[in-house]
């Protein structure tokens, strides 16, 4: 995907705070997207119907119709990707938003780079939906793809540089998505040695992998830490 392709896509930014809309417009337009804006939920629905919108960034707390109501209405007719953009950072809010039909969730104040990465990721999934080629050697979870033949890992198509051990750990976890492995199990499988005095060696590796494949390493979406038990690669899309 290059800039020419992207420029075809229109992104709807919906927030009652004009300054935030402007900032997002600057970032998105710098990436080559066309940006339309709305000030509340009703306006957003109207704009989404009028314009050929490829993705919606939607605030929740807005005057008039709020974000969640607007999204529920939208979902009756459209399956355009929606990323919620809100100051509400509690887990319950996130779960509610995702259940109502959001594809992703970003809390304020957000990191612009993260917003762009997520937008890119959602667009790729939305536009390439159904056209996925699945080679047996290709393991894919979310935006992360691991090509065991080429010994390559890509994130949204961009290659991720991993060390050999990091690659082995990631491959082991991606081969068993959704399953929790203890550090000792992972160590035995990857190093082929009994896990004696491994201390935090494995945890450091995991942290490094997360920094490379997660948009927000402190809140991982794919390579998750199960505290006090081990690690797992998330099976479903978040």
């Amino acid at each position, binding site marked *: 995907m290059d800039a020419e392709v992207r420029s075809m896509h229109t992104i709807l930014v919906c927030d009652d*705070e004009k*300054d*935030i809309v402007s*900032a*997002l417009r*600057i*970032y998105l337009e710098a990436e080559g997207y066309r940006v339309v804006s709305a000030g509340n939920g009703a306006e957003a629905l109207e704009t989404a119907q009028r314009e050929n919108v490829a993705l919606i960034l939607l605030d929740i*707390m807005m005057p008039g119709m709020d974000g969640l109501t607007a999204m529920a209405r939208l979902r009756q007719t459209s399956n355009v990707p929606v990323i919620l953009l809100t*100051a*509400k*950072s509690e887990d319950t809010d996130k779960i509610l938003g995702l259940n109502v039909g959001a594809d992703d969730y970003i809390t*304020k*104040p*957000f990191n*612009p780079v993260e917003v762009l990465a997520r937008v890119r990721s959602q667009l790729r999934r939305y536009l390439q939906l159904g056209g996925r080629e699945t080679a047996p050697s290709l393991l894919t979870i979310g935006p992360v793809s691991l090509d065991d033949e080429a010994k390559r890992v890509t994130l949204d198509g961009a290659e991720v540089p991993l060390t050999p051990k990091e690659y082995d750990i990631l491959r082991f976890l991606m081969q068993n998505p959704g399953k929790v492995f*203890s*550090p000792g199990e992972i160590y035995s499988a990857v190093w082929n040695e009994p896990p004696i005095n*491994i*201390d*935090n*060696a*494995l*945890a*450091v*590796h*995991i*942290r*490094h992998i997360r920094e490379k494949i997660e948009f927000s390493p402190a809140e991982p979406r794919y390579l998750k*830490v*199960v*505290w*006090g*038990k*081990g690690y797992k690669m998330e099976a479903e899309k978040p």
Partner: protein
Amino acid sequence: MKKLLPKLWAKITALILLVVLGAMLAASAFGIAMLATYHAYTDGGISLSRSVQRGQTYDDDMSLAVSCYAASLDGDSLGLAHYQNIFSAENSNFFFRITDGDGNVLMTSPYTAEDFSYHSFQPDTVTYNRRVVSETKDFADQAEYSAYLDEVSGKYALEHTEILRTNADGSLTAAVSYTASDTKDVVVNGYIRSPLVAKDGIYYEQHWVRLLVSFRYGLIAAAAALLAACIFLFVFLLCAAGRKEGVEGIHLNWVDRIPFDLYLALAALPCALLAYLYEGNSGYGDAVFIVFVAAALALAILLGMSVLMTFAARAKAGSWWRNTVVCMVLVLIGKFFRWLGSGIGYAAKNLPLCWKGALGWCGLCLLELIFIAACGGDTERFVAWWFLGHAILTVPVVLALIAMRKLQKGGEALAAGRPDAAVDLRRLHGEFRKHGENLNNIAAGMQKAVDEQLQAERFRTELITNVSHDIKTPLTSIVNYVDLMKKEDIQPEKAKEYLDVLDRQSARLKKLTEDLVEASKASTGAIPVSLERTDLNVLLPQVAGEYDDRLRTAGLEPVLTLSPAVPAVLADGKLLWRVFDNLLSNVCKYAMPGTRVYLSSEWAGGRAVVSFKNISKYPLNISAPELMERFVRGDSSRSTEGSGLGLSIAQSLTQLQQGEFSLSIDGDLFKAVVSFPPAQ
């Protein structure tokens, strides 16, 4: 002398000496008393010797003289010779003359005395010519026979009577035998020869009296000396009591362990036995009497001494009163009453009010009945009325008890913090009802206060959350436009520095708002907690791994020590991560660069303990509790990033998981400890 006190042989010797000297003292005291009674110290013993002349031997001689005359009347020549030998001039200093009522001399001693120092006379009856008479006689009737028997027994000693035959007309034939003797009234005159030539009883009596009188002053000295010796021995024995060779302090032997009053009774027993024996056989002579007196005296001294010695030993040990049967019995009685009292007290404390009241009422009625019976007012009519009255009275008593029980339950519920358990006002009347209403009002007030408190807590958390949301929106703009500005090519260079400040401070503001919400929720418990079996030995390396890079960037070397003995605990892994996240974030901020940070797990005191230790960058001139307060940080200047809420959040989150969180500061050593009970 002191050395002798504990020696056993010294004690035994002293005891024997005391017995002997005590007997001698008694004898000399007796002698002095006798001498004094007969004025021997004033008249030189004359009256004593005179009274002794009329002593035992003189009396014996007087009766022997009568026997001698009886022998001559009986014609018993052998006996006569015997008596004449006794009263011969060589054998006796006694001279007698027997006369009849008219003064005719009937008999005298076989010699004539030249000089008589003393004489007395006394009338006596001589019995002679004894013989047994047996006769068989006929009597006209029973009365005549009885009269005859009376007549014979009036004169003689009856030996045998037997009715041989009884005729039809009442006459009878009987055999009667009796001892018949003749008697003659005489006057016996007794004289004592002077000087006493013959060595008879009188001579020896006088001889001893003279000896005694001549020794009368010496006797006093001897008695005094004996008394002193006895007192000395007595004191010595009392001092020696309770001492034993080789034992420090007071030693109680087996005798001293016998209850004292029991021992006293045992000691009194032999004396009582002796007295009984003497009383029972009072026909003994002087010699036996003296032996008895001596034995009794020795025994009394021996037993008295042993009693006194054991008493001394007990008194020295300070326990004589405790080791008595009386004391033991008293203690037992005391114990019984204390037991009874504590039992009643226990029952009174633990019995429910209704039981207590019922028992009290029954007890009161019983007491009244006893008094009524004691006063004698127990006529049938009165008792019947009494029973009727009390049966009626029982109804209000029971009602009052039930009401009190209800009120008590209400009060207990209030005290236990359950204001929703109201007092049931049905069937409560008068003052009880008023009291129940008051209790219910208090409960309602409490409920209201609790509700308001909860409401306030909820409201505060909500307020903080909302405010933080409202802050986040402008903050987002600030963060974004700062970021945008950084991308612009801004001149001069100083403006870039200012932008960095804005960037840093907006990041801090973001963290502060997030921490504020979290602290508020954690302290009010508004965070869902799902406790699961969690392995701290897995979690701690995970946490250390997450922070490895940041710690090394801060110039710190993490040292991980895991104890395999740590069991799994019940905790919420996510929350526990937030606890450790906060702690390690603090470590990164406040630990002295170039030092080590110790993360360890251990099994101590029945709890799984995780501890974080580091050396502080700044002097910790603040107490651990203050450090945990919100908005207080190790550095009072607050120049670095962070909200100061980290420790407070860590503590609240640990407590939400039923764990314990504690901080300790030792100089620059900062230690945070999180501990959990093991999972069941």
